[in-house]
């Protein structure tokens, strides 16, 4: 039995997108203790979330441990599946939260650390800052893509089963003793790929709707621009080099003539 499970699928990898991030509010804010603990000015929530229309996260993620700053009482907090893998706290300072991801036992993979730097201050352009202040909501998150390289046979099976999309579906009973039917009633067929465009049903940062192919395109063209600037810099360096070469020749002639 163990031999069969530990056999790996060669030449295949499976990736999953997910979100690591945090929300922060200036206290007092609903959902946080009022009055807040002494000295605490911000309420925040750090989270590990799936994409809105993606496969179920708990297929591979069984436990998340958030390791907070050591000044917190009981700094390492663990949340087991089914989650949600979220942790609310109050505080006043920013620090790096160590997030330890524990995988499904059949994967045979060890737990892995990721770090998220807690963002409590407003950030970005002035407009963004103004909006964050107005809404009293700061969201700082990033998309992570985890790759399971050459997963074990069993893990491969669970990662490619239709059940992963059940959490997005409506359960339709089929009478006593029968398995319930799961029916998908959304507009866009769920997939592990990045969604084509923004989720219009209240997406945006925090809900995960901000991550889509359109945004990717935008990011790419902005990087392309950066690259063009860079190429200009290379040209400049080359020109300088040419100048130096000429100078060198001139000096060489001068030395030779002496």
């Amino acid at each position, binding site marked *: 039995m163990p031999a069969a499970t530990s056999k790996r*699928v*060669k*030449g*295949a*990898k*499976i*990736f*999953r997108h997910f979100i690591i991030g945090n929300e922060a509010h200036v206290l007092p804010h609903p959902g946080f203790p009022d009055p807040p603990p002494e000295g605490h000015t911000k309420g925040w929530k750090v989270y590990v979330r799936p994409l809105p229309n993606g*496969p179920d996260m708990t297929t591979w993620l069984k436990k998340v441990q958030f390791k907070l700053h050591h000044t917190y009482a009981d700094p390492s907090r663990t949340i087991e599946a089914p989650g949600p893998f979220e942790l609310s706290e109050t505080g006043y300072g920013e620090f790096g939260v160590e997030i330890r991801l524990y*995988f499904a036992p059949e994967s045979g*993979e060890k737990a*892995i650390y*990721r770090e998220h730097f807690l963002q409590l201050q407003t950030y970005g*352009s002035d407009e963004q800052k103004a909006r964050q202040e107005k809404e009293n909501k700061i969201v700082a*998150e*990033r*998309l*992570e*893509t*985890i*790759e399971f*390289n*050459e997963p074990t*046979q069993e893990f*491969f*099976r669970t*990662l*490619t089963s239709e059940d992963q999309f059940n959490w997005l579906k409506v359960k339709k009973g089929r009478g006593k003793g029968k398995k319930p039917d799961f029916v998908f009633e959304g507009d866009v067929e769920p*997939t*592990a*790929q990045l969604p084509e465009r*923004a989720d219009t049903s209240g997406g945006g940062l925090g809900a995960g709707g901000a*991550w889509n192919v359109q*945004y*990717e*395109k*935008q*990011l*790419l*063209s*902005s*990087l*392309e*621009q*950066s*690259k063009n*600037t*860079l*190429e200009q*810099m*290379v040209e400049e*360096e*080359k020109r300088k*080099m040419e100048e*130096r070469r000429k*100078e*060198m020749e001139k*000096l060489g002639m001068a*030395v030779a003539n*002496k």
Partner: protein
Amino acid sequence: MTRAFEGAFFQLVVGAAVGLATITISNKIERERARRAKLGLRGVRRNKIRRCFGRKAKDYSESPPKDKNLLVLDSASAVEAHLYGTCPHGAAAATTTTADEAAPAEGSEVEETPSNMQLVRFSKYAVAPSVPQYDHDTFEKHLAHAGWTEQETDYLMSTYSECNGKWPVVADRYDYPNADRTMEDLKARFFGVQATTLQLSTPISSMTASEYNQYEVLSTYSGAQETSRKKLAEGHLYRRANEVDEETVLLGELQRIMLNQATLDSQREELRHRLDNPSPSTNGYSYNTSQALTGLWQQLLTQDRMKKNPRLRPTSNQAVDGMSTMTPTSAAPRETPRRPHSLASATALPVDLSKADQKRYGVVLQERLPTGVTFTSDKLTKPRIAKSSIQTEKIAAILQHIGVPEVIPLPTPAVIEQFESIMQVVMTILDLRKLGEKEEHELRVRAAEA
């Protein structure tokens, strides 16, 4: 029975109207306003009716107010009545009844003065087209174009705003000396300018999604493509009947071919499989000496030994068989089969997945994978860190200078590829600079010598 029911219904309606009226006219000021509005309304309605039927309505004692705005509105509704044509008797009658009975109730709804009403009604049509703004310096720096002078570009912008952004009109009116421009030329130039100014006002990285969409549409406009599209559409419009028939037949044919494509492909694949023999590196004539034949036999024998169940039995003759310890590499290497093994067939998946399902579950087939779990975002952070901290700082400075954010929040393959190409150039620059420093130093030494 029906009649009685109708009567009851009518009473009900009237009762409701009266009730509504009582509520509305509870306030005195409110009442006064309602009366005025009612008068205005009546005036309009009466005029409308008069124009429709060409006779004077006598049942109103008060004359309609002679307001200028109202008159405009009046004629507008007359035009409307005219446009909507027939102006049936019944409709007119219905209008009169409502005006008579429900006017007090309606009065509160029609609180807008006539001029306000007109503004609200037509203001949405008073739209000035937005024309990109730029000054001379910006033009020189960003908008210079080989085929367009600044004067002509200015002329294009002014024509565009004059013609209210209607391209056919712009193309028709466009009359610049020594310039023969098609509508597509004009559009391409205009959109190009617009995209550039848009990007100058908001850099791509801080555009909102809708702004970026607009920018993308503007910057990807291709005049040539548009011309060919129009030509195609025109051709499509003026086809003859026999051409349409021919097209239908051809489409049918194409569909048939596409349907059979899959079976044909699989048959061909099978055939290729059958034909796939190890191809000799030379032609068969090279084996016409006994020595060559012995070589061949040894070669085949060594190959056969590598297999699980050898089919060739070695002869007892050592000289012919060659040394049994002969390593397979010493024999002439067998040419690998020409048919490229597709990766999908090489990798045995425990679950049979179609291409679409592979995509849906995020399965990627790839050779030479690292083991265990990896995060793609590492590929966006690790290259930034060099062995020495000075070098790391230099890299960070360059990346910051060219506007690459410290955290790239979307580690997709395309983004990673782009980032890696950027990093490559960064490394080139660093090398160039290092070399530059060395040369500078040498130059100084030489200058001191000279």
